[in-house]
Structure formats: C-alpha cells, structure tokens
C-alpha cells in the first residue's frame, strides 16, 4: 500500500482525476498549495513598487493505492499532467503502514 502525492498545475487536476478514474481508484484528496521548484515566479508591481511572486499556486493530489497499481497510477498521473514546460510538478510515492475506515473502525487493506 502506497501514498501517491502529486503536485500538479491547477488546470491539470481534472485530467489527472479522469486518468486515475480509468485506473479504477475510488478515492482522492485535493489541496490547494503554493510552492516552487525550478520554475521561477513572476514580478508584481503596485504603483511602482515591485514584489516577487515566487510561490506559485499548485494543486496537491493524494491517493492511496495497492502496491500492484502503483506503476499504473503514476504513469496515468504523469501522462495527464504533463505539458513539457518547466513547472509541471512532481510525483512522490510514500509507503503507508496502516489504514483504517472511520465509519466501521475496520483496518483495511484498500
């Protein structure tokens, strides 16, 4: 069981969601985040005063997947979120030790 954490362009969230749907993953969590990698920010100017806007808005998508679906899910995310330009984002795969369903209290293996 792995947690896939993908940081993508905000306008790619729907594409990624559809792609993960085709891998038949039922759940996901999406968060608005700000950050930067290699992509440089913009400069904003208010009445002549310059500000660097170096942290750009991104979306973070989290999905927990069974081990045998990890490669397929990562490939789906990368294909859906890629534009080829700097700033496309990152995908991290993190091991998950345990998982529980709150409604029933049962320990689940996805």
């Amino acid at each position: 069981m792995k947690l896939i954490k993908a940081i993508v362009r905000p306008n790619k969230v729907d594409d990624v969601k559809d792609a993960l749907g085709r891998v038949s993953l039922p759940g996901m969590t999406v968060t608005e985040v700000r950050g930067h990698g290699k992509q440089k920010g913009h400069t904003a100017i208010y009445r002549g005063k310059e500000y660097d806007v170096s942290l750009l808005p991104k979306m973070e998508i989290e999905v927990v997947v069974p081990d045998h679906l990890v490669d397929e899910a990562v490939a789906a995310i990368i294909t859906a979120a890629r534009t080829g330009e700097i700033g496309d984002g990152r995908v991290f795969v993190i091991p998950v030790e345990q998982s529980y369903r709150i409604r029933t209290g049962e320990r689940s293996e996805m």
Partner: protein
Amino acid sequence: MNAADNAWTLVCAALVLMMTGPGLALFYGGLVRQKNTLAIMMQSFALMALITVLWALVGYSLCFSEGTPIIGGFRYALLRGVGVEPNADYGGTIPQLTFMIYQLMFAIITPALITGATAERMTFGGTVVFMTLWSICVYAPLAHMVWGKGGLLNATLGGRFPTLDFAGGTVVHITSGVSALVCALYLGKRTGFPKEPMPPHSLVLSFIGACLLWVGWFGFNAGSALSAGGLAASAFVATHFAAAAATLAWLAAEWITRRRPSALGAISGAVAGLVAITPASGFVAPMPAILIGLVAGAGCFLMVTSVKGWFGYDDALDAFGIHGAGGTIGALLTGVFATRAINPVFRDAPVGLLEGNASQIGYQLVGIAVAWGFALAGTIILLKVTDLLVGVRVREDQETVGLDLTEHGEEAYNLEM
C-alpha cells in the same frame, strides 16, 4: 427658487456622499492588507457621522457665515437661520438647506482622504480626535477663505486675493494631500516598510471604489455650479474628459517605464485626473480639460512611483502623491486655462493666463501657498495635541495582528472554506 436647480444640487449632494461611502472606503479598503480592511473603511464611515454632527453644531457656520477673512463666525451655529429660503450669496436659486447639506459632503470626504496616509497604523481614537480638530482648525478656515463671503481668497465675494477654485482643488485636495504628507511623516513608517511586502489585498474592491468615485465626481464638480444650467454641463464634460486623459497618461507612463499597464495604474490615473480638474472644472473648455488630465496623470505617476521612493516617506495609499500633487497641478493650470467663455467670473474681464490675465497665476500661487501653509502648520500642531491627549499610533504588536481585530474586534472576512 428654482426647482430644477434644487433637484440637481440635492442629487449631487447624494453623489458626493457616495464618494466617501462606499467609493473611497472601497478604494482604500482594497489597497490595505486584509487585516486592516475594516479599520480603514470604518474611518471613512465614522467621518460621515462625525463631521455631519460637527457641521450642524459649528462647522457650517465657521465655513460660510460672515466673519474675518480667515474664518467665519457663529451666525449659523446650530444651523440657526438656515432654512428653505435661499441665501443670495450661495446659490440664490436653491434653499440654503440644500447648499448647507451639499457643502457638508465636501467637509466629510476631505478628512477621509487623509486616512490614506495614516492607514494601517493610526489608532481609531486618535483618528476621531485629530479629524475633529482638523475639520474645525484647517478645513473650516480654508473653505471660508476660498468660498465664504469676504474670505481672503474668494474670487467673487470680496476676497483680497481672488483665487479660482471651482469645486475644491485647493480646499479639498491640497489641504488633505499636504496634511496627509505631514501625517505620514509624523506617524512614521509602518512596521516592516519598505522591506516587507505590503501589496493591496483586493484590487477588485479598489476598482469598484474608483469607479464609484468617478461617477460621484460628477456630483462634486458639476454640482458645484449650484444650478442645473450650462455651467453644470460644462463642468460635467470637463470632469469626464480629464479623468479619461489622465487614465491614458498614467497607463502610457507605466507601459513605457515598467513594460506592463496595470489595473491599479488605470484607476490611480483616473483619480489623479479627477483631482486635478476639480478646481478647473467650471472654468475650462473640454480640450484644456484633456491637457490638464494628461499632465496630472503623468505628474502623479512620477510622484508615487519615483518621488516617494527618493524621500522614503510611507504615504501608505498615496494620499499626498495623488491629492496633494494633483490638487496643486490643477490649481496652477486653472489659472492658465480658465476662460470667460465658460465662466465670466470677472464679468467682461479676462480670467486665465491664456486670455491675457497674467496676474491670475499669481493669485493661484497665493491660494496654493496659503493652503500648503495652513495644512502643514495646522496638521503638525493638531497631531501633537492629539498625541498628547489620546495617542496616535497603535502598538507594534497591534500592527502585526492588524487593526481590524485590535481596534474594532472584528475581521473583514470570515469565509467558510
């Protein structure tokens, strides 16, 4: 009495009130950081109430009853004798009540403009005390000198130095702008300025505010004709053209020097043009109005983008850079372009420099000097007095948390996610 004149002036009074709330409140409210939004809007709104009551008690009388050349007397105190009968000296075709309420709206917006320089760091209590004193000791003398019968600078009612100021370039914009500069210097910089970024929290609010100001300004300038005739039409047209030209001038300056024309630049330019045309609006033809707008747009752009940086004062929302500078530019250019074809204020004699009245430039300079002098001296003294009485600046920890919470116990935005 003329019903059309009365109807027009009453509508204009409402338009000028709309300039303060919500116009100026939104314009300034959007320019501050989120944590100070309510505090700055509250200052405008509180002044709508505070100056109104002061006006009824003594303000109107000190501005418009006969007294000395510097300040009026107490004849109209508590609005005694101010009724539906017209006053021959002030709009002879409308009730004096209409004139009184129309002028009140100017007395409200003038101190409200100053809050742009004290933004994000002046206490609410200090603001209330200072503005009360300022309205009586600085605004009332200036309004009396320029517009009151027998005032030192009055152009038509027996002034020693006939200064042309149709709708308040000197009375409203120079006094508020210069006082704003003094306030910015006295209060000192906001904590973190200029190292910490302090970008406007919502230019959308500012945008709406500026558009309301533009519309309200028709009441400010065209209403100053105090009648619904040709002079009102002329002032309306001049006002609009100057605002448009100044918008283009600011945007062009920005596009050339900073590569990108900004929304904040567009609305700042419009306000600069509206400020500069204010004293001239009832004296100039449409083409000179466009010229005045172009000069004001470029001039104020220079003030807020360069001059402020050279001197390093923290005029947070550029009250001096736009109202002080724009008002001074407008007062001078009024002396250049005023024409008897629009307003035969001196009967058959020429009015402005271009039609041969060179001495008018001198009188305009006297008016500018008196307004600057009163604003500088008066504001320094009154700030000192206010500081001793109740204090003027919030503590640093209050500034960090924001004035909305620490001065008013509220937050502007409690949005659910």
